[in-house]
């Protein structure tokens, strides 16, 4: 008899309440173990790597600030994406919305450059940044609601359009004439620069925006009809229509919100961290934020924690590259391992694995 074993997931009748809390911790331990094995296979000491990846950044004040700086755009974008993902809409193009937000906000900074325009410049830049990201996000939303075009494809393709647009601008019309032909804009005036939260700190006000976004989102998701509308649209679209929630306006709203927050992250990064426009203004925050959103299970506070953890892997990855000569790609691999472990842990909390032999008894 051909005995074909197969693996089945069967729902658990009841879930121990403690398990839901412990699962992510177990997932982290597992992810570190797997990463340790990979590092060991690469011929490095896993213990030293753990030291460089985790212990060192967390014990050094400079690194901790760096951590907050990197976590800021991740948290802002991921919070925005959580609106889309809750409603089962797939905005994969936050990177592009981030870039367009940065471009539109920077336009004002460059236009007012050297004019001593006053205190209104920075707030106006931030608003333009939000509007830019929003507009870019609304393109796939409009194409979906009007023509039924798949939003995954359009939002992703618009990332490349945005990046090439940025590239063109900093190499062409917006290039600093005194910049020795480097592809970058002039450095923003102080009135167009997002200040740091303390004088000695590197952490800029973007971190405050991220915190506000987390708190407001927690309120929206848990307490408002709009939050329930997203949940219902995601979980039971027909019931959402029955409730009178129009799918079109939901789609437009969540893309506007996630695009707007990505644009805010973009302009905050350029005005607060980089200080000028250059061809590359993101190490892929818009894509990594997708991981962050799911690591945080679409929960605003979970996303905040996940953004910090993923930021840690960025910083640890950079030091590991310098100190241990480990490839930078390992950071992305680790982010992937972490996501898979967390998702598996989630599944295993609600389901148990059963190995079934075909035709046989147990």
């Amino acid at each position, binding site marked *: 008899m051909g005995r074909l074993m197969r693996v*089945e997931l069967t729902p658990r*009748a*009841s879930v121990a309440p403690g398990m839901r809390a412990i699962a992510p911790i177990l997932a982290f331990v597992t992810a570190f173990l797997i990463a340790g094995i990979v590092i060991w296979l690469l011929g490095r000491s896993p213990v030293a790597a753990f030291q460089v990846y985790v212990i060192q950044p967390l014990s050094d004040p400079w690194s901790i600030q760096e951590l907050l700086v990197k976590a800021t755009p991740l948290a802002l974008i991921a919070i925005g994406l959580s609106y889309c993902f809750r409603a089962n809409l797939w905005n994969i193009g936050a990177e592009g919305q981030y870039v367009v937000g940065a471009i539109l906000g920077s336009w004002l900074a460059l236009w007012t450059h050297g004019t001593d325009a006053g205190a209104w410049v920075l707030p106006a830049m931030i608003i333009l940044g939000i509007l830019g990201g929003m507009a870019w996000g609304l393109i796939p939303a409009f194409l979906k609601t009007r023509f039924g075009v798949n939003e995954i494809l359009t939002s992703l393709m618009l990332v490349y359009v945005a990046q090439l647009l940025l590239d063109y601008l900093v190499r062409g019309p917006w290039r600093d004439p005194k910049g020795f032909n480097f592809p970058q804009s002039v450095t923003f005036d102080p009135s167009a620069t997002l200040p740091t939260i303390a004088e000695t700190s590197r952490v800029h006000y973007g971190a405050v925006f991220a915190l506000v976004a987390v708190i407001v989102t927690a309120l929206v998701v848990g*307490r*408002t*009809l*709009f*939050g*329930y509308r997203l*949940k*219902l649209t995601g*979980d*039971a679209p*027909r*019931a959402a*229509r*029955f*409730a*009178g929630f*129009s799918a079109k306006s939901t789609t437009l709203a969540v893309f506007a919100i996630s695009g707007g927050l990505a644009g805010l992250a973009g302009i905050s990064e350029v005005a607060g961290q980089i200080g000028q426009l250059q061809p590359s203004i993101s190490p892929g925050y818009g894509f990594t934020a997708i991981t962050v959103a799911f690591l945080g299970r679409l929960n605003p506070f979970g996303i905040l924690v996940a953004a910090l953890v993923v930021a840690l892997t960025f910083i640890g990855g950079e030091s590991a590259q310098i100190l241990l000569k480990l490839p930078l790609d390992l950071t992305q691999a680790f982010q992937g391992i972490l996501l898979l472990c967390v998702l598996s842990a989630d599944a295993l909390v609600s389901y148990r694995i059963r190995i*079934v032999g*075909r*035709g046989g*008894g*147990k």
Partner: protein
Amino acid sequence: MTADVSSSRPLVELKGISKRYGDLLANDQIDLVIDRSEIHALLGENGAGKSTLVKILYGVIEPSAGQILWEGQPVTITSPVEARALGIGMVFQHFSLFDELTVAENIAVALSSDWNLARVRARLGDISRAYGLALEPDRAVWTLSAGERQRIEIVRCLLQNPRLLILDEPTSVLTPQEAEHLFVTLDKLAADGCSILYISHKLEEVRRLCRRATILRGGRVVGTLDPRAKSAREIAALMVGTEVGEVRSGLPHQPRGEMLEMHELSMPAGGLHGQPLHAISLSARAGEVIGIAGVAGNGQSELFAALSGERPADRPDSIRIAGRPCGTDGIDARRRLGAAFVPEERLGHAAAPTHRLSENTLISHATAEVSRSGFILLDAARRLAQSIVRGFDVRTPESDPQARKLSGGNLQKFVIGREIIRRPKLLVVDQPTWGVDAGAARLIRQALVDLAGEGSAVVVISQDLDELFEIADRMAVIHQGRLSPLRNIGEWTKEAVGLEMLGEAQLHGASHAG
């Protein structure tokens, strides 16, 4: 072969089957014997443990205790695949079909690999003709009505020549003629040696088909009897635990103003195989129950969508609710005019399966007392859910459970209660008692009649003719998107309705219309 020895043994024997979910004992020491060629009825209210028991037999869930003997041999059935290998086929009440696939593909995926599409298509024709289960093999399932979907499930099992066929409420979406066809089929199958476990709430059906019925209540067997030797009332009393009464007609009422006027509404088909509506005129006055009879797939879902505003019409004055033109308005605006709606599909349409009952109140009360300026009033939602649960005898496994944890009948009581508690001026219900046990069905019908008695207009779209004759004041029949004239219930005979359902009365009917 030891046919003589084995034929004296029953086909299946369940001994002391128990299933515990936490504190809830869903099955308590159940014994059940099914003989060869027997059509055995399993009767009981929703929540009595019938679904749990048959899922154990079909390998979907594991029993906590007890033994299953198949032809006298103890067996452990750990999956539906194993159940099918033994020769057990099951037609579920909730369909397990892939919406995007065609009828033939849906059948082929469930069968073993030696069934290819060509073979399925060939056999499908034979089966459809033999058993009166009309199906087009190449239609996508998402375009089919509930009735047609169930036919796929039935045919799918029959193609496997099962030795034991389990049917869970199979006739709930069939026409009387189709149901009679099915009974003939089942009799024939039984005569050919297949045993049948028949789950139903319709006592007349059980008495038509079965010589032995096992009755469950609260997870225990409360009796095994010959349903033909007992009156329907006695059997129902065993099931429900108390005497079942007739639905009282509402207070003596005189229909007053028009709450719903639909004037010559036409609507193109929604999907590829949807049913267009042709010049439908309909009215409902305060204080009366309007019945819409018809066979599944004749435009009922489209009529419901047009009434609810899920598909708005072209002209505002094609629909008036409480005198106000609202044809182009959405469902929300119509709710604000005092209308309320209960769609056919409980899970996914009327209620979100994974949401708690309190959250599910938001679906139709979003504009009412459970929210204020965009914020949800969680306590108010919980209290509302509680009062629906109490007011409509909804039995829940815990306080404020997810909707999917309720049995079909209890969830139906909840979604109907959710609308009635708003005291709507107009209530439109599609298939109010589909797949619901006798006790719940009676409660629901009573609630609908009472609502009309208190001065609301109630429109009931139903395939259950007995139900409509019991509660409707006026009735019309829908056939291929056209509605017959509304007539007082006393002017209808079952034969006349049957003719309308088949489209035979269109010619004769015209002369009667006033």
